[in-house]
């Protein structure tokens, strides 16, 4: 096995290792925290794809997560569909949402695309509140069943963990295929120069739309998983703050890899649960960490963008750092 094959397999090995965790952890809450890490990682894989490979930005990804979460909740609870069908529907609705936003956004770049996604995210937050018959309004949507596939119900902490990280693994595979095959090269070209890519015959429009849709789809599926794992969703989960948290994870991780953002998603999610992670941590300390959590996100974004534009992943790629920093 040469180094290149190893490199390609590395993320899969990592995911495989992640899947072993429940065998070693008996604390159900810790497993749940790791499950949340996985859900965030799923959104972040999609964002990294959008961000790092297509050079596009979304400040409204929490909206797609919300679309997926509410779709899955509505389909399973109100329509009585099997969970898997609701899960698929969640992906479809989120992807459609992505398509609806992506098409008119095609002529937008940089600041304008960012503002459009921000506006879309805020509009969806309002919609989740106003569409009360479907979403339950501000009171939220409760009584969402555990995920199940056929007769298998994912009820225990470890089975939910496997389900979520399994989904992350599949997302990584999909993302890896997208990035290493021809469209992936097109996307990297996009990030560098759209004109250049176009001159080489790259279908920029197609690549942009497809990336946006795939990215929205991943967020939607993450939302459906969250709904199943927790059993309750409400509009305050899918706000601008959540979108910025996902951005922070992506930026900190580095936008030209997948391992970096996943790692950052795990690390930044754990910040929130420091009291559960470290037994005996005084409540005051945990509380301080929690109250400064958003400061950490904000500051991390600023510092990383200024001093380490390629994120954590970039810091480790010492050789490429010099060549590509500009």
């Amino acid at each position, binding site marked *: 096995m040469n180094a290149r094959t190893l490199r390609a397999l*590395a993320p899969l*090995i990592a995911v495989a290792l992640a899947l072993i965790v429940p065998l070693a952890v008996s604390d159900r*809450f810790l497993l*749940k925290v790791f499950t949340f890490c996985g859900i965030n990682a799923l959104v972040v894989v999609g964002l990294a794809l959008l961000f790092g490979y297509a050079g596009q930005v979304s400040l409204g990804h929490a909206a797609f997560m919300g679309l997926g979460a509410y779709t899955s909740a509505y389909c399973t609870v109100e329509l009585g569909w099997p969970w898997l069908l609701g899960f698929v529907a969640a992906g479809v609705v989120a992807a459609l949402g992505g398509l609806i936003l992506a098409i008119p956004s095609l002529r937008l770049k940089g600041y304008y695309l960012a503002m459009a996604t921000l506006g879309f995210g805020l509009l969806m937050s309002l919609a989740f509140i106003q569409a009360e018959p479907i979403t339950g309004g*501000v009171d939220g949507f409760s009584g969402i069943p555990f995920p199940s596939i056929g007769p298998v119900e994912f009820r225990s902490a470890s089975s939910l963990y496997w389900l979520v990280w399994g989904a992350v693994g599949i997302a990584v595979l999909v993302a890896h295929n997208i990035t*290493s095959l021809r469209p992936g090269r097109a996307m990297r070209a996009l990030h560098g120069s759209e004109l250049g890519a176009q001159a080489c015959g790259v279908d920029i429009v197609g690549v942009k739309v497809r990336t946006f849709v795939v990215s929205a789809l991943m967020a939607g599926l993450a939302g459906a998983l969250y709904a199943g794992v927790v059993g309750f969703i409400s509009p305050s*989960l899918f706000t601008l703050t959540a979108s910025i948290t996902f951005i922070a994870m992506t930026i900190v991780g580095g936008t030209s890899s997948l391992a970096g953002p996943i790692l950052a998603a795990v690390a930044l999610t754990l910040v*929130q649960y420091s009291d559960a992670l470290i037994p005996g941590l005084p409540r005051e300390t945990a509380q301080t960490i929690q109250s400064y959590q958003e400061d950490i996100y904000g500051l991390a974004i600023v510092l990383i963008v200024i001093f380490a534009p390629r994120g954590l992943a970039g810091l480790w790629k010492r050789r490429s750092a010099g060549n590509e920093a500009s």
Partner: protein
Amino acid sequence: MRGRTFGWPSAVLLVVLLTALLAIAGCGDSGSEPSGDSTGAASGEPIKIGAILSLTGTYAGLGEPEKNLIEMEVKKINDAGGINGRPVEVIIEDDATDEAQAVAAASRLIEQENVVAIIGATGTGQTMAMRGDIQRAGIPQVSMAGGTVITNPVDPLVFATPWSNTIVVPFTLDYLKGQGITKIGLITDSGGFGKDGQAVFKEAAPKAGVEIVADETLNPGDTDMTAQLTKIKNSDAEAIVMWTAGSEAAIIAKNARDLGIELPIYGSHGIARQEFIDGAGEAAEGVKLAAGKVLDPSLYPEGSEARAVADDFISSYEQAYGEKPGMFPGYAYDALYLVVEAAKRVEGDLTPEALLEQIQATTGWVGIDGTYNMTAEDHNGLTVDDLQMYEISGGKFTPVQ
């Protein structure tokens, strides 16, 4: 640059991290030993109760006094022998006024700490958010949030200490009717509390002989209610009734006065706090609202149990924290003691089921909000007798007849 998409070093890092996770998780396994330092009069294994409060975020101003109160009273309870000789340990978690964190906190308290009951949350949204975990665990929850949705319809596991809209709204309507007001302009927020109030008003107004001639809503966070008030002004409303608990209420009062509307203004019990008076300034003068008698304990007869409880609550809070308690520590007091008193009545093993049964069996217990009588159909337990109409005058809540 092909093949550089997943750098080796970052993959190694990922592996290192996962190993670290495993190590931490391994430690976590043995981390369930009780950490209570029960040096008080009570001894034995502590009874663990969880409390989920908003100590940061939007409701931090509400949750902080609740935390103060709980810490103060738990010490008092343990000094006095705890629950049947066992000390109480209340594990306080911050939900940061965020539903997701409330869910995570409930999950941790249930699964890591094995609490027998949960007090909280501070807000309605957070209270509702943890319902799934409460149901899956089957433990009782006593909320300190005001939304009627919490106890209506009744969830067998969930109780709430603030007066529910289903008693405050009819009380307010009766008072209006007594003032000869039969046509009201209603303005409610679209959040949980206001929306709930609006529904209760629509149901109760016809019964009370009051007509809602304007029915306006606002979004939490709105900063200008001119449109809604103009519509109420142009209706034949004889009073403005506003059902919102946040800073929006102060804006309504100010906008109404600025628009030259002279109609009397009635508010909800959610504005029975100094922030409303500070926010509305002059415009707060004359605003009426129904709230508990604890705002003015002299309403209780001299020597009554309720008077003693209220006086003691106010003086010990003032002594400990240097300021008068608002409504919220009162909600926390009642929530804590509903659980503690019920736990004292449990004979044999203190299981969640036994505790639940005893909380529901609470009768004639005098708390801060009034006298609680829980039943299977009523998980709030208060009545209109616990309420009093107040008018804001001279920047103070003054009881009116």
